[in-house]
């Protein structure tokens, strides 16, 4: 099939950036979206032009490295998908596709379709973990976790940290990402001792990084490749307000 691609080109953070249009013939329906871009890049290099820079690594929808906006939708039109696992058979001959990087205040531009997501790193470092010193753990089966609780934790632990939720949010909020981490650890008994501190630390870091506020658009949930539920945001808010009310306390219990 034939495609017209309109791609954002920007040399570096200081460059203004612009759209460039490319025509591509011979796109096979078996290709993944990134393989289609590989083909474009090979052509560009052979012509003496610079290839389009895009982030990617595993190409199996698990590392969270890839991601850009296709025709206004983060990771493209297929639900629960990343651009690396988006397949060309879901497009039509003659399609006109506009490719842009994640646009969010907290994700500065790096080059072409690549942005700087280090704000996510700083949030996770602020306290998105259980402090478990190596060597001090009891036997694994001494902590029993009902299957549904373990599964609920896993539903949130599946977040791949791609940033699509931020890119698709009109406010540029990172609530889904942060909520996922808080919910994952909050569903587990091991996560209880630090639960209040965790919520406070993560929310503070998130605010400091310049992510927007949540006004319930829920576009994050709709574009999230892992189907992370906005229930995570509710859990985050609850933990956060509880933590503020009963400062430093152990929230304990389940919900």
């Amino acid at each position, binding site marked *: 099939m034939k495609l017209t691609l309109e791609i954002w080109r920007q040399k570096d953070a200081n460059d203004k950036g612009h759209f460039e249009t490319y025509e591509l013939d011979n796109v096979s329906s*078996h290709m*993944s979206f*990134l*393989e289609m871009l*590989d*083909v474009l890049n*090979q052509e560009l290099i*052979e012509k003496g032009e610079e*290839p389009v*820079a895009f*982030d*990617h*690594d*595993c*190409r199996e*929808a*698990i*590392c*969270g490295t890839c991601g850009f906006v296709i025709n206004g939708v983060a990771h493209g039109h297929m639900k629960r*998908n990343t651009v690396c*696992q988006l*397949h060309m058979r879901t497009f039509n001959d003659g399609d006109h596709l506009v490719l842009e990087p994640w646009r969010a205040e907290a994700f500065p531009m*790096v*080059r072409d379709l*690549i942005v*700087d*997501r*280090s704000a*996510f*790193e700083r949030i*996770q*470092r602020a*306290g*998105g*973990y*259980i*402090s*478990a*010193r*190596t*060597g001090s*753990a009891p*036997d*694994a*089966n001494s*902590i*029993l*976790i*009902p299957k549904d609780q*373990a599964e609920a*934790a*896993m539903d949130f*632990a*599946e977040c*791949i*940290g791609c940033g699509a939720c931020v890119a698709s949010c009109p406010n540029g909020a990172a609530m889904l990402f942060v909520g996922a981490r808080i919910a*994952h*650890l909050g569903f587990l008994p*091991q*996560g209880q001792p630090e639960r209040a501190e965790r919520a406070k630390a993560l929310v503070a870091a998130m605010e400091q990084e310049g992510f927007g506020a949540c006004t319930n658009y829920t576009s994050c949930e709709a574009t999230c490749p892992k189907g992370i539920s906005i229930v995570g945001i509710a859990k985050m808010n609850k933990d956060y307000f509880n933590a503020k009310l009963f400062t430093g306390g152990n929230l304990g219990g389940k919900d």
Partner: protein
Amino acid sequence: MKLDAKIPSGPLADKWTDYKAHTALVSPANKRKHTILIVGTGLAGGGAAAALGELGYKVKAFCYQDSARRAHSIAAQGGINAAKNYQNDGDTVFRLFYDTIKGGDFRAREANTYRLAEVSNEIIDHCVAQGVPFGREYSGYLANRTFGGAQVSRTFYSRGQTGQQLLLGAYNSLNAQVNAGNVDVFERTEMLDLIVIDGVARGIVVRDMVSGEVSSHFGDAVLLCTGGYSNVFFLSTSAKGCNGSAVWRAYKRGAGFANPCFTQIHPTAIPQSGDFQSKLTLMSESLRNDGRVWVPKKAGDDRPPNEIPEDERDYYLERIYPSFGNMVPRDVASRNAKNVCDEGRGIGPTKRGVYLDFAAAIERLGVDVIKDRYGNLFEMYEMINDEDPYTTPMMIYPAPHYTMGGLWVDYDLMSTIPGLFVLGEANFSDHGANRLGASALMQGLADGFFVIPNTLGQYIAKGKHPDVDPNCDEVREVEQGAKDLNQKLLDIKGTKTVDYFHRAMGMIMLDKCGMARSKEGLNEAIEKIRELKKKFWADVKVPGTGESLNQELEKAGRVADYFDLAILMCLDAREREESCGGHFREEHKTEEGEARRDDENYCHASVWEYMGEDQTPQAHKEELIFENVELTQRSYK
């Protein structure tokens, strides 16, 4: 090159305990004064950075991705082994050790593999404490599944994303140490070379992949935890950025490279669909628990699978290996898939494929159970192939997946360069000639969280570690060399892309140094790769500059190293006149076509020493001594 494995004396089961009891320690106050450079943030590197940070060392960790959490360990699917015996099915540390040694076809070091099995249980405890959501029974106890090469159920898992969850556990611990001020992480930073001063590893040269700036970092020890080199085949199950450059450049600085030809071709990946293919997608081996592998009995049978009646199907693994059936080790499963395809019985558009059929399991257990076990894998398969594996059998074919070979290390995980340690898939130590499923995650976490924190102290405590002068000749030379190499690549300004060369090399390697190898084929491969390498250095086109983000330049550097690594793999495969594990030499097989080992002449690790550009490297041997297991011909029949 001297190869002293430094295996502690005493009975196998006591070695590690005794070692820990007698090893030299560094006082807590002094640890702070020692900087440790860790390249790689996968399970091995991430684990090491967290654990050494907890101990109080000053750690600097590096990765080429934009986050430590994206290391390739994240992609592991099926699970992680441990000898917990939670199923009461007769598992013990010794049995896990024995299965791993036997699975590796008796080409690994007993003491290291035993230690791996021994710490496996602590790993599971630790991961649960970190908040890894392992699969559970309704009772709340941990669940297990069975993996290839074992008759006990000892594999722990998190749906089909075990690697992701384990890596997030390690990443969280790493982050806690960053927050505590003990670890600094340098993302989008690629190691270009190793700095060796007075014969000791003292630093690394790195390139900032955004600005292009080349700089050096110094420390009292360097840990390479940079993963495997399966991408030498171009198409593999590895992430696109996985590379052999860090270990290769260390090899060129004097680190011995052990068993480079020991690579694993995994039996269950999605077959290739076209020339544009950029990588192969793994379907976890755990699927073989419930899936049955078959091809039509007749060559050239083109009917859709569901129209081929039961008695015209050949469930060849169940037929040839009645006791292990579909659960034979990977090398055996892959070779048999290749054989049936070579006989013209392969399926799918390319005829290089076999079926993996869940119909029987769905009938026995119901769709819900299968969905619970493999739901996301089935989803992924459907996304890629546009076919529903609940109703149509999956198509699979072997794909390069793991490299057992790597830098040689002793019991302390130290290479032949003092101060250079190698952990995880990057070293050669635990899996011999074939790795059993669910044992790489175990090794990564073992090396990172439990081994290196105990073995590094000895080296730090006993050495002097004077400060490195950043302007000394050694540092300047290595830094300049790294810059020059990049400039050289940019200056060629030829006509063909890096991928063009990489693909061509991959095809040669897969054909001649893949699932089956012969002396003749290997000679041919060496010739062809040498020619290709020459063309690369004359005609590759790397656009852009070194002073900016340049993904083609990154790839070019890696492919340049792969040429040399590929040649070394072929040399090693040619030298080893036996078949063992994943290394199958056509000239050495039994009458039934199974691998024939030669314990008399090849019961050793082959360790190669770099002798200079385009020079034949020197071969050394570490004899493998088996005191606790009897070397038997592997049989899974």
